[in-house]
Structures are given as structure tokens and as C-alpha cells.
């Protein structure tokens, strides 16, 4: 394995996919964030916690510009981070992934990781816009969310390892095993403790846009890393002898 090329492929693919994710979010998620923060501000005024003054709006504009400008930068950082995990898993599992070239293998893996690390946890703990969420429970919610992602990911990995030991016509057993396992975990894990106080249409539409944004990342990382891997072939070493 050519380590420098491997690292280059992983980090650049992650950054590009993260940039795409941030850009998609900036286009389709931001309007819902603005709407939700508008409701949050109204709640602040009504509760007397803050006052509707020019000073308030000057400060508000200041930090909203900072928050919005971070959307794409945070996308790149998150992309490099998740892309690194994707690169590790791809390098270690490449030989056993289905597909006759690295693009197909990478797309297959990104589909599996999108489903087990994002969609399954999302169904249990879906994304929420601002105004939904009690600051007092943020640590608990973070622990629940991360735990579920880790359990789902490790469960998928374990059943995948099991499937490699089974004959072709019995591989379905490991898929059924993961389905039963994650179904039980889904029922056992505690619910999100926060009540949804924002309009349900806003929350639902925000969640749909959130899924599209994250899915754009997983689609991009599979395609970009697969193309780079096909082109640069970091797993091959060329020896010349004279």
C-alpha cells in the first residue's frame, strides 16, 4: 500500500464530499434554520428573556453571519473526519467488498455506512432544528445518539464478519441477524427526552432537508474516493528490476 497516496485520497475525498455537504446544506437547510431561529427569538421576547430592540438585532445579525459562514467550513471538517473513518473501513474491507472495480466497491460501502451509521440512528433520534431541544439534556442526547451510532456500526461490522464465514446461500442469515439485533436495540434505547414545541411542518421539512444534505455527503464520498482509488491505485506497488 502506498501510504502517502492512500492518505491523500482519503483526506481530499473527505474534504470534497464535506464541501458538497456544506454547500447543499447552505442551499436547502439554511432557510429552515432561519425560520426556526425566528421562532426562538419570538419565544425570547414573549418570555421577557430578551427585548426586541435594535441592539438585539445588531448582535443577532453578528452571530448569525458567523454561524452561516461556518456551514461550509464545518462541512469540510466533518467531511475529513467521517471520510477518514470511511477510508479506514474501505482499506481494510476492500478485498471482500462486492464489485469488479474500486468505484463500485466504494459506492457499496458508502451505501452500507450511510444506512447503518446515519439512517438507522436517524430513525431513532432524528435531527431537530433550533427551538427544539433543552440545553439541560444536551449531554444525555449526545450520549444516546453516539451510542446508537456505535452500536449500529459495530453490530453491522460483526454480522458482516459473520457473513464472510458463511456460504453464499446462507449470507442472508447475517442480514437477518443484524435486522433483529438493531430492532431490539431500537426498542430498548430511551427516547429523546425533549418535547417538540416547534410547528411540526417546520420540523418535518427540516428533517427531510437534513436527510438530503447528509445523503449528499455519503453519495459523494463513495463516488469521489472510488474514482481516486481507481485512478491512483494505492494498493498496487510497481517494482522494477533490471
Amino acid at each position: 500500500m502506498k501510504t502517502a497516496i492512500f492518505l491523500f485520497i482519503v483526506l481530499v475525498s473527505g474534504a470534497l464530499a464535506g464541501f458538497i455537504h456544506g454547500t447543499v446544506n447552505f442551499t436547502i437547510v439554511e432557510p429552515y434554520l432561519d425560520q426556526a431561529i425566528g421562532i426562538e427569538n419570538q419565544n425570547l421576547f414573549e418570555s421577557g428573556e430578551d427585548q426586541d430592540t435594535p441592539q438585539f438585532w445588531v448582535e443577532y445579525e453578528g452571530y448569525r453571519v458567523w454561524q452561516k459562514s461556518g456551514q461550509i467550513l464545518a462541512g469540510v471538517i466533518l467531511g475529513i473526519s467521517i471520510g477518514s473513518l470511511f477510508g479506514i473501513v474501505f482499506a481494510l474491507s476492500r478485498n471482500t467488498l462486492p464489485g469488479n472495480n474500486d468505484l463500485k466497491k466504494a459506492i457499496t460501502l458508502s451505501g452500507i455506512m450511510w444506512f447503518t451509521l446515519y439512517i438507522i440512528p436517524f430513525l431513532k433520534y432524528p435531527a431537530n432544528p433550533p427551538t427544539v431541544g433543552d440545553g439541560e439534556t444536551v449531554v444525555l442526547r449526545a450520549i444516546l445518539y453516539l451510542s446508537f451510532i456505535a452500536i449500529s456500526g459495530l453490530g453491522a461490522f460483526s454480522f458482516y464478519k459473520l457473513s464472510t464465514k458463511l456460504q453464499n446461500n446462507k449470507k442472508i442469515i447475517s442480514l437477518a441477524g443484524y435486522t433483529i439485533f438493531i430492532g431490539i436495540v431500537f426498542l430498548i434505547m430511551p427516547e429523546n427526552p425533549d418535547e417538540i414545541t416547534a410547528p411540526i411542518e417546520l420540523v418535518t421539512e427540516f428533517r427531510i432537508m437534513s436527510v438530503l444534505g447528509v445523503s449528499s455527503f455519503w453519495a459523494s464520498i463513495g463516488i469521489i474516493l472510488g474514482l481516486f482509488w481507481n485512478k491512483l491505485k494505492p494498493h498496487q506497488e510497481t517494482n522494477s528490476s533490471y
Partner: protein
Amino acid sequence: MSESRQITVSKNGVSKLAIVALALVFVAGLFVVGFDQGHIFSLVYGEQAFTDLYIHELTHDMRHAAGFPCH
């Protein structure tokens, strides 16, 4: 007369150092975007960082959009 040969071999060995480096990048990036509440800047600015929340605010919109608990 010398003969030139080129052999392409496929090696599956992945550098352990590369794996460790990427694992560190994964954890650090996830913490910055998903969970920092002033912790990183507190190493330099002390308790004030937990009030300013610069990184939290910078990653705020992505945090919500990507499904991380925010506040």
C-alpha cells in the same frame, strides 16, 4: 544487453500508522463539529471560552443539519 521488467503487485497491508493517524483525524473532527462547547479554546482562553462558544457557534448550523444534538 539488459532486460527491463516491470512487475505490479497488489499489497493489502495498510500502514498501521496511517490507520492511527486517520482515526485521530476522525475523533478530532467529530469532536470539533459535533460536541465542542468551548473545550478546545478553553485550553488557551480558560473559562471565558465556555461563554464565547466560538467553535460551537461556527459549527452550529452544520450541527443541527447533520443531526447532532446542539442545545
